[in-house]
């Protein structure tokens, strides 16, 4: 009660105005999404006028619901499939690149280090156009799933390198040197010492790559061939301006829930795996620093 009275007495005293701005911002950033999720449970065809609660757009409707519309189901499957391939290819490549670039002192390391930064600052549209042109005109790779995977891996690798390298730098070379002094081979030191120490960073990389892939629209759209290789973001983009039903909201909601569930699960696994290693950096923090 006292705090409320203080607030009324002097609403501009530090930092109340800042608190109001911050909480307003949080509400503004979350509420529209919550409303869109609520409308996925609308009983009518409208995405903006509430007509009662139903699960019609999830599976009730025999032809237009997410569950029964083959193009919507296909989009979900394609999104998850691309995310799976992207994680399986980009993470090993990125870990290798991070290891190589940190430990290799030769004069080839600098240009590769420099090249690795470019995908992070290149607008996606520029990358999408160049990949499309090179696939069509030079490599003769047909558009579709393969092309989409190649494109997504290309922009994912650099994020993995950044995550793993920052962890490598904080570990330092001493553990590995100790292992070598005790008679481990280079491969043995890597397998028995370095990789276990890197596992939190590798784990964080998987999550970040998953999120990058699921969220990607531009590259995936440019390299898609037809309806069968459309992902959820492409489906939303092409449907949002038309007279679509709340099934689109339902599709987007399924994706959001799947992503949040994956992240929450990953976070719990991470906490569980690190329970015996005090002093580790939080995965959430690592991911948060990187998503930017």
């Amino acid at each position, binding site marked *: 009660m006292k705090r409320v009275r203080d607030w009324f007495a002097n609403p501009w005293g530090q930092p109340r105005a800042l608190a109001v701005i911050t909480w307003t911002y949080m509400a503004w950033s979350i509420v529209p999404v919550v409303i869109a999720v609520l409308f996925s449970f609308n009983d009518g065809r409208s995405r903006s006028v509430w007509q009662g609660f139903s699960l019609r757009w999830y599976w009730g409707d025999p032809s237009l619901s997410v569950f029964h519309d083959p193009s919507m189901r296909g989009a979900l499957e394609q999104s998850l499939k691309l995310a799976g391939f992207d994680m399986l290819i980009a993470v090993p490549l990125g870990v290798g690149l991070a290891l190589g670039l940190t430990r290799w002192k030769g004069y080839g390391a600098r240009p590769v280090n420099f*090249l690795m930064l470019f995908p992070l600052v290149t607008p996606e*549209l520029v990358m999408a156009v160049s990949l499309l042109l090179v696939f069509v005109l030079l490599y003769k790779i047909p558009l579709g799933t393969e092309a989409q995977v190649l494109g997504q891996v290309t922009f994912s690798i650099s994020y993995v390198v950044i995550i793993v390298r920052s962890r490598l730098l904080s570990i330092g070379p001493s553990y590995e040197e100790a292992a070598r002094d005790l008679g481990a081979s280079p491969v043995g030191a890597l397998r028995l010492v370095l990789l276990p120490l890197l596992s939190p960073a590798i784990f964080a990389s998987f999550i970040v790559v998953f999120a990058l892939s699921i969220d990607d629209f531009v590259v995936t759209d440019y390299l898609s061939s037809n309806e069968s290789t459309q992902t959820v973001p492409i489906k939303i983009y092409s449907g949002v*301006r038309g007279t679509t039903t709340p099934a689109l909201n339902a599709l987007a909601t399924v994706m959001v829930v799947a992503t949040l569930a994956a992240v929450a699960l990953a976070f719990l696994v991470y906490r569980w795996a690190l329970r015996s290693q005090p002093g580790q950096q939080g995965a959430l923090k690592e991911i948060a620093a990187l998503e930017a």
Partner: protein
Amino acid sequence: MVRRWFWPSFALPGAAWLVLLFLVPTYAVLAVAFGTTDPIFSNPVPVWNPLDWQFQTMRSVLGEMRPGHTFWIVYVRTFAYVAISLAGCLAIGYPVAYYLARHARRSKALLLLLLIVPFWVSYLMRMLAWVGLLLPDGLVNRALQELGVISQPYGWLDGQASSVILALIYGYVPYLILPLYAVLDRIEPHVLEAGRDLGASPISTFLHVTLPLSKNGILAASVLIALPMFGDYYTNDVISGSPRTSMIGNQINLFFQGGPQRTVGASLVIILSVMLALLMSYYLWVTVRASAQTEDSLL
């Protein structure tokens, strides 16, 4: 002794991937932009040898960028939208990041979690949410009618510059807040206490200590969101879809998804990349100079 090829061999696959799927594709854009066009099917014919490059497409595209010509207005509009959106993002993002770093106590964990949520909600899902709100019978129009601000539903989605700019701010502000927060959080409290002990008011401590210390962070975060904004076309397509608000990204997308003139599209991509490269080098120059100055003052 670790063999010389041991560590390079780890970097090799990733490095080869980046060369084949980043460097070569970038060259392909040049080969198309400076290439020729098949006279019958009007397909682009890339010219891989730089000695045979043709420059007439680039010349005519650059000609269209002169004041009063086709692309001029698109470029001016893009710069205006990005500048206004950036200012809006900073106006919202800086206070939020500042509050989080300096004042949030018990609520800090919750606020950080709320701050990260947008990263896990797909960008287009967030745009979809706004389209639902801005529809003629959407909540925004109904609320405004209820309040008596407007009598007829306002066409928010019919090519309004204001809607596009608001959507850009909504879309990109989370990417600005997080790095800004990281920078502000790193400022040591005793630096601020020193300012206060030397007699500065809270406001002058902010202006003379916090703000200068976060200047590089502001610049970095701004560059971080300005770069993708320059290549953004989907926000515009989803929120407006009208040529009245089209940006550079829309113009490029039009040549690749709609029309046959990919040579023109590739030229526009090169011009955009050169512009952004200049922006990046300015940023790097400023940061390098700033860190050199800090070192000087420490010596």
